[in-house]
């Protein structure tokens, strides 16, 4: 049984490969964590963004690699999760074919869990059953005759309780034994119409010159015309004709080709389970009475709103102090290192303003990511997530999203990074893609300082706090209001992926385990820092260098001279001399700010800003706003600091700074047709805010989208949102200039 696999594919490191397979939510990952501890390695499957978790298992003196596969109900490869399972089990895409499958089954729902096992029997890979959640089964009054089950299935069956670690030693022993003396599951006996249909397909594929189909693959093509096996075939019409013939024959023998596979498997399983499963007394499911409350029209909605409020509040406010702490830590580190490197200003700036600021910029996202994934793990482990999706699905279904989009989109209001990462809970690839593309439109907390600065400076003094509040509120919905219709358009006309039916299993309510939750948080945190973090850091260093170089010393000299010349008009030379010698004096500070400002103007990014200012001219942006906008592409909150530098106030201004506000109010055009007019008119201010609301000014989000989808989608999202933002700003300025 083992020999052909070994011959066909030499095993890496000579260790056997064991894969954990099963329905969603049966306890595979819990078992995997128990078996491997933290000896895990998380990577991505080639070409798809489903994570590949592998770990090392030591048992009875031998070592093996264990693979934790995503959960799936059947071998129908529709979602990415399922595709991965198909690829691994078939040893496709250069993946190593497992030597042993450990099916992790939920004992409370044995029949449905066995459907996948029954399908996999066709693959002929040696197997072993871990009958998990035995505690829950017992509680529900379900008794299972394990020996009889093992006898009927022809493979060993081990009872486990993954959450408590019960049955772990037995399972390890069984794995080692099964690797030595493998036993495979008996194949199902198919009706003639299906065997015949498979024969037809196999002959047809051979004729079409594509790679030969095995019996197992032919079955997949027969029942799942979208299956991965038809992807490689160029002659789609030929496949369709073959399938039509085969389906017609199935129909003629009284079966529906759509449900035939499940019907036959379930029929087989019913006889197989006869006398194995015994439900003692009425099934007392915990969830009926809880559901009556949690899914109630009134109470359920209120509780849902309450739960989401808690999640959102904690992202927004609990993360705050931690983020401030990280921020303070970053500044402290910068202050500590700055004097050490004062001999080399370029190196000093690279280390402090580039690297340390960049690392700080990565770590700053961690609190929100960890908090969000704490809640997601909690909501999923208790079984509430599926209920929440059920409650709100209708709000999202019209535009191609679904109920599971809610949590990612809500969390994107705090920050799009954890929001995009949270879309992993969507198994439908189309809905997931759409949700990811919509997430950056939600008004994240980094946009808030920009709104507060501009509203506080221009709207509140003119229109009062009531209007100011209303504008701030409205700004939080601009993105959402555009995102949902956009999602609809995207789904309707552009995305060529087939939509999946939104069918959810309502899992039993469970008491979550801390161990599981910790593991999930740890995985996500580590993954973010290791993978997205590196890209974000690279971005920060790139932007730093664009703002730092070329740093011509002449710029400094000219700036100094011009400032001193204007100072000489007002003060006596001796006063100036004294002020310059005292680094605390106003003049010294002004000089430093003046030089910084001149450097920014002369930096690559500054020159670029001046060069592209004509692009932003239709929106009424001058070159300073343009540079501010450009420099905030890596992270939008940077604009406040950049504005501070450009307007000679130093980098440590914040959105509440009175200096910055009064400078902005007084700012006038110095040249061009609008010379002498104020720069920040109402349309310009609104334009800037809408621009920030719609633009993807966040390198970290681009990086995370590239990681979750690919660079093409990241680029699409980036350029699409930038274009949309520009268009909206121009529209606002131009339309309001008409009045």
């Amino acid at each position: 049984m083992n020999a052909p696999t070994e011959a066909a594919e030499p095993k890496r490191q000579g260790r056997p490969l064991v894969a954990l397979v099963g329905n969603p939510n049966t306890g595979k990952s819990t078992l995997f964590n128990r078996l491997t501890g933290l000896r895990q390695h998380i990577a991505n499957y080639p070409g798809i963004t489903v994570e590949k978790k592998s770990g090392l298992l030591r048992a009875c003196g031998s070592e093996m690699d264990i693979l934790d596969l995503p959960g799936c109900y059947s071998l129908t490869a529709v979602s990415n999760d399922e595709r991965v399972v198909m690829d691994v089990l078939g040893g496709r895409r250069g993946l190593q074919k497992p030597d042993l499958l450990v099916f992790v089954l939920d004992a409370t729902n044995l029949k449905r869990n066995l459907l996948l096992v029954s399908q996999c029997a066709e693959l002929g890979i040696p197997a072993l059953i871990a009958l998990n959640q035995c505690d829950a089964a017992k509680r529900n009054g379900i008794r299972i005759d394990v020996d009889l089950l093992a006898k009927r299935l022809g493979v060993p069956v081990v009872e486990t309780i993954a959450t408590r670690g019960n049955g772990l030693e037995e399972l390890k022993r069984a794995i080692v034994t099964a690797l030595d003396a493998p036993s495979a599951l008996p194949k199902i006996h198919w009706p003639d119409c299906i065997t015949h249909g498979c024969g037809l397909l196999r002959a047809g594929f051979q004729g079409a010159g594509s790679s030969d189909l095995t019996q197992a693959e032919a079955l997949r093509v027969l029942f799942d015309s979208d299956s991965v096996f038809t992807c490689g075939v160029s002659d789609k019409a030929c496949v369709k004709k073959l399938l039509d013939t085969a389906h017609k024959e199935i129909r003629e023998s009284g079966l529906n080709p759509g449900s035939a596979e499940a019907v036959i498997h379930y029929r087989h399983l019913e006889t197989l389970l006869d006398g194995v499963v015994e439900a003692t007394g009425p099934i007392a499911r915990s969830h009926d009475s809880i559901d009556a409350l949690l899914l109630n029209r009134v109470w359920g909605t209120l509780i849902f709103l309450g739960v989401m409020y808690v999640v959102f509040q904690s992202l927004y406010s609990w993360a705050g102090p931690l983020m401030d702490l990280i921020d303070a830590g970053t500044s402290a580190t910068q202050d500590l290192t700055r004097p050490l490197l004062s001999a080399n200003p370029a190196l000093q700036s690279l280390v402090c303003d580039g690297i340390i600021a960049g690392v700080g910029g990565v770590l700053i996202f961690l609190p929100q990511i960890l908090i969000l994934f704490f809640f997601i793990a909690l909501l999923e482990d208790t079984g509430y997530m599926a209920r929440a999706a059920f409650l709100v699905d209708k709000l999202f279904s019209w535009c191609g999203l679904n109920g599971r989009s809610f949590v990612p989109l809500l969390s994107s209001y705090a920050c799009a990074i954890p929001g995009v990462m949270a879309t992993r809970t969507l198994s439908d690839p189309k809905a997931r893609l759409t949700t990811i593309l919509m997430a950056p439109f939600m008004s994240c907390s980094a946009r808030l300082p920009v709104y507060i600065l501009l509203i506080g400076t221009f709207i509140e003094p003119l229109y009062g706090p009531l209007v100011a509040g209303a504008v701030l509120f409205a700004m939080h919905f601009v993105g959402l209001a555009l995102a949902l219709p956009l999602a609809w358009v995207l789904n309707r006309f552009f995305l060529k992926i087939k939509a999946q039916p939104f069918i959810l299993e309502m899992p039993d309510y469970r008491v979550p385990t801390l161990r599981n939750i910790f593991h999930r948080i740890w995985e996500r945190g580590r993954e973010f820092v290791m993978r997205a973090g590196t890209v974000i850091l690279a971005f920060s260093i790139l932007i730093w260098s664009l703002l730092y170089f070329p740093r011509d010393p002449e710029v400094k000299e000219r700036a100094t001279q011009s400032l001193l010349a204007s100072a000489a008009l007002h003060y006596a030379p001796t006063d100036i001399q004294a002020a310059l010698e005292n680094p605390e004096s106003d003049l010294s500070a002004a000089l430093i700010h003046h030089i910084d400002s001149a450097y920014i103007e002369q930096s690559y990014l500054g020159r670029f800003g001046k060069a592209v200012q004509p692009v932003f001219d239709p929106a009424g942006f001058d070159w300073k706003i343009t540079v501010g906008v450009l420099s905030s592409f890596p992270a939008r909150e940077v604009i406040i600091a950049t504005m501070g530098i450009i307007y000679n106030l130093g980098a440590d201004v914040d959105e509440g700074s009175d200096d910055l506000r009064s400078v902005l109010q007084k700012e006038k055009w110095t040249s061009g047709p609008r010379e002498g007019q104020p720069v920040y008119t109402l349309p310009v201010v609104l334009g800037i805010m809408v621009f920030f609301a719609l633009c993807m000014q966040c390198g970290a989000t681009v990086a995370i989208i590239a990681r979750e989808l690919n660079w093409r989608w990241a680029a699409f999202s980036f350029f699409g949102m930038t274009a949309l933002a520009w268009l909206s700003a121009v529209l606002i300025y131009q339309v309001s200039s008409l009045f």
Partner: protein
Amino acid sequence: MKRTLDSLKVGSRAEIEDIASDCERANRMATLGLIPGRMVKVTRFAPLGDPISVEVDGQEISLRRAEAHIIQVKNISE
């Protein structure tokens, strides 16, 4: 006229007769236990009326009305 699952009221039971749809959707539903011959019970509607939740073979499944619409039912007891 054939009755479909989405036309049932909360609390009613029926037997699944057939899944009238393209292969993949039918396959997906059948996998989760919605197969001809089994009894289904509509347990509740979501607050906004869609999706609906049904019980089949001891498990609770939620599906949208559009999907319930392709499931034909018979022997309805309301």
